[in-house]
């Protein structure tokens, strides 16, 4: 096994060579660390990853975390990475600066992620790894934990002590966060963790040859450390969502858990349904009865919901569906990222009805776009899908203070008091949107009818009514198009006149930002169009953007280039796809290599 390990390392050395050809400069400016902690599911390595992220946030750095973990509760390998920098961070870093691991297989797993700066700190309780051509320390984390604290449970906190010593982080900040974290638990657990932390620190003082770096507090405060699921839950409550129904599914479950915990304080209800079909029908019912209502799910659950998605389209009930993509098809890999459900989000559901698909590219955007999703749903009276993926959903990053004054509540054509005269819920209007009542509004009786219906909602099969109703519903898409343009004016990054163009959405947003920043430090220059929504498809904006470019790259986390094909479709020009579909995030270098090789 070790021979093989060595042989493969040869590969990563090659990698490093390619890498060092021209891009390194970028990384040496300012502090920009990428630390990975390797353990096993359930062994608490996520906890110290979180602590590390919090420490960095606390002392003023921008932080982005990245978890690579199995769809299993305990025992399989799991990795938590933290990137911290004094400049804005958009993506994971190309190479690992520090790998702290309790399991030897991690050393091989990351072989393509080492640079000449990498330092590996591994648990040598059982054996030492020989022939490692990367700087490394073997530390007996487990052994120390057992001998000093009677259990190997504290190896993580010992490692935290070693690592933060090497990084030269002031002890008091670490202790601070440690206390905050363990205070909620039993007193003896807090004490033992503090002891473990000290053991690690002292071991390092005695055994590690001097500090690697010395990280200063730069004291930028006020920012939040949030992941997309948290931002969306927050956004929903703030937007006035008062009904949630869902069914547990990785990586969307946390949204439900957060809403069940917090919604009641704002007189809202969040329920766990018996399945996703029940969930979507519950929110349709609640919305019919007047509440802003939402569900969140992933691929398998969304597939089950599509019959009723079509219902919401037909009866023009506003709903918000958060669609957190994971690796497919079928069960796939529940805990990994992918953007391969995009076409399903745009085109599933039988029959034709308007829908809106929003694609936030950062945690912060996930927050604001969720609040707008409710406005759009009620203004256009149609389902709105907030499409993200596991990367944005489950990885925390530092976010600027969220600005409540940017959040508006607009409920569209909603009638809440008595209607005099002949009320027609599905009145044929110029913009296709008809005023809706909610029970028990007097004079506002109507039928929300999944059958084709007349203006009052009653079943009608006559060809003239049918045609008029289809047209009415589809006219709303035009309103959606206009509204979206106003709400989310297209963001173009980089040099306006560049002839190299990038297009992306969702979780590739950050990586493209870093890529163009790096590209633009030399010639030729590049620009980037972030797609903030995918339906109605922003063809005009794309066509405008690609005007006068030589090369267009569309970057996606899927194998077929789903949006790439749509871009081709609407522009009629050739595009290059840069795709990744192994469940792991693009590193900037993955993109740059393709670009540099033409």
């Amino acid at each position: 096994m070790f021979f093989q390990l060595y042989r493969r390392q040869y590969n990563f050395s090659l990698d490093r060579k390619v890498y060092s050809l021209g891009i390194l400069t970028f990384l040496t400016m300012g502090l920009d660390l990428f630390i990975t902690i390797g353990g096993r599911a359930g062994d608490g390595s996520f906890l110290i990853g979180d602590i590390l992220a919090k420490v960095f946030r606390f002392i003023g750095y921008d932080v982005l975390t990245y978890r690579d973990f199995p769809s299993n509760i305990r025992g399989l390998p799991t990795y938590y990475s933290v990137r911290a920098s004094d400049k804005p961070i958009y993506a994971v870093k190309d190479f690992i600066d520090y790998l702290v691991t309790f399991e030897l297989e991690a050393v091989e797993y990351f072989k393509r992620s080492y640079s000449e700066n990498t330092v590996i700190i591994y648990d040598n309780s059982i054996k030492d790894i020989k022939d490692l051509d990367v700087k490394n320390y073997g530390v007996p984390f487990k052994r120390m934990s057992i001998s000093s604290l009677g259990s190997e449970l504290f190896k993580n906190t010992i490692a935290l002590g070693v690592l933060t010593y090497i990084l030269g982080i002031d002890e008091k900040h670490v202790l601070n966060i440690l206390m905050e974290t363990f205070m909620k638990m039993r007193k003896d657990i807090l004490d033992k963790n503090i002891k473990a932390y000290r053991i690690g620190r002292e071991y390092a003082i005695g055994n590690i040859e001097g500090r690697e770096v010395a990280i200063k507090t730069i004291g930028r405060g006020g920012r939040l450390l949030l992941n997309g699921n948290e931002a969306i839950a927050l956004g929903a409550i703030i937007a006035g969502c008062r009904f949630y129904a869902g069914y547990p599914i990785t990586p969307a479950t946390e949204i439900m858990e957060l809403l069940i915990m917090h919604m009641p304080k704002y007189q809202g209800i969040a329920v766990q349904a018996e399945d996703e079909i029940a969930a979507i029908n519950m929110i349709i019912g609640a919305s019919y009865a007047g509440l802003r209502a939402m569900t969140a799910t992933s691929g398998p659950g969304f597939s089950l919901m599509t019959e009723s998605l079509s219902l919401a389209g037909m009866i023009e009930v506003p709903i918000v569906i958060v669609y957190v993509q994971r690796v497919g098809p079928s069960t796939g890999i529940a805990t990994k990222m992918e953007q391969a459900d995009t076409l399903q989000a745009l085109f599933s559901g039988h029959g034709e009805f308007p829908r809106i698909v929003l694609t936030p590219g950062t945690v912060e955007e996930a927050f604001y776009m969720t609040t707008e999703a409710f406005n759009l749903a009620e203004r256009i009276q149609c389902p709105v899908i907030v499409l993200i993926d596991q990367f944005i959903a489950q990885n925390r990053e530092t976010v600027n203070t969220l600005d409540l004054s940017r959040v508006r509540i607009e409920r569209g054509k909603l009638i809440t008091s008595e209607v005099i005269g002949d009320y027609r819920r599905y009145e044929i209007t110029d913009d296709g949107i008809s005023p809706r009542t909610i029970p028990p509004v007097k004079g506002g009786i109507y039928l929300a009818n999944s059958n084709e219906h007349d203006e009052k909602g009653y079943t009608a099969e006559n060809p003239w009514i049918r045609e008029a109703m289809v047209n009415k519903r589809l006219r709303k898409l035009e309103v959606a198009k206009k509204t979206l343009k106003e709400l989310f004016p297209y963001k173009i990054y980089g040099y306006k006149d560049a002839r190299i163009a990038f297009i992306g959405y969702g979780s590739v947003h950050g990586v493209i930002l870093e890529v163009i920043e790096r590209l633009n430090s030399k010639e030729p220059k590049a620009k980037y169009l972030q797609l903030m929504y995918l339906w109605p498809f922003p063809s005009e904006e794309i066509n405008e953007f690609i005007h006068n470019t030589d090369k267009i790259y569309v970057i996606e986390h899927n194998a077929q280039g789903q949006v790439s094909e749509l871009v081709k479709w609407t522009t009629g020009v050739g595009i290059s796809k840069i795709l990744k579909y192994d469940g792991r995030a693009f590193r900037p270098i993955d993109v740059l290599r393709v670009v540099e090789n033409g």
Partner: protein
Amino acid sequence: MVSEGEFILKNPVWCPGCGHYAVLTALRRAVVKANLKPEEIVLVTGIGCSSRFTDFFRSYGFHGVHGRALPAAIGIKMANPRLKVIVASGDGDTYAIGMSHFIHAARRNIGITHIVMNNQVYGLTKGQYSPTSVRGFISSTSPKGNLEKPIDGVLLALSAGATYIARGFSGNLDQLIRLIEGGLRHKGYALIDVLSPCVTFNKLNTYEWFKRNILDIEQINHNPSNRLEAFKMILTSSKILIGLIYQSTEETFEDLMMSSIGGVPIDANISLGENNYENLIKEITSI
């Protein structure tokens, strides 16, 4: 007081003689007796001949998709428990594709009056056997006789924990009105399974057949508040029982929910103040 006429929207277009006519009449009369107004009621249906109710009964209406009337109704009831939420569905809609929602609605004891028009056949799709069709039943999908053992919605509801369980018969209008009215007045989930003959596709379970094969539990000595007794009656009776089979008092799902949130969602103030906002952010970010 409102009159029956206020609940009339248009004339139904079921086959002449269809059992569903009586159920519609019974529901109209029961809501009058229960003193409800059209705008206070939301009638929720699935898909089927039975589910065409929403095109004929005047009130707020929701005609959703096949099998999913209950979850939609639950959403409505949770949003605004002051509404009277009634579900009208068929045996296929409820006991085939909708089986799971049925069991879960029953165990949650959510305040919905659920009328199942059980004609032991799929009417709207033109006569296939249903989960309540008897063994040997001949239909377009069981030309040599149905091989599956029928389920009994009443027994399942009882096992799932429902708190109002009755069975009516379209041929017995007065009792049916009473059973529906009882369901409307009951706090919690109320199942009224109605034997409602399909004259077009079920030539076996006809009005006459039912008259021979039913037993009115209200005519015999039965205490509907005794659960074990109710089980025994169902399991030992050689006839199909009609009447009120079981009723008990338990807290409803909506009451439990509302007391846990301290109010009714539809009354919530949906714009958060600065204070609440700060608290919320603090709580959510305290990982």
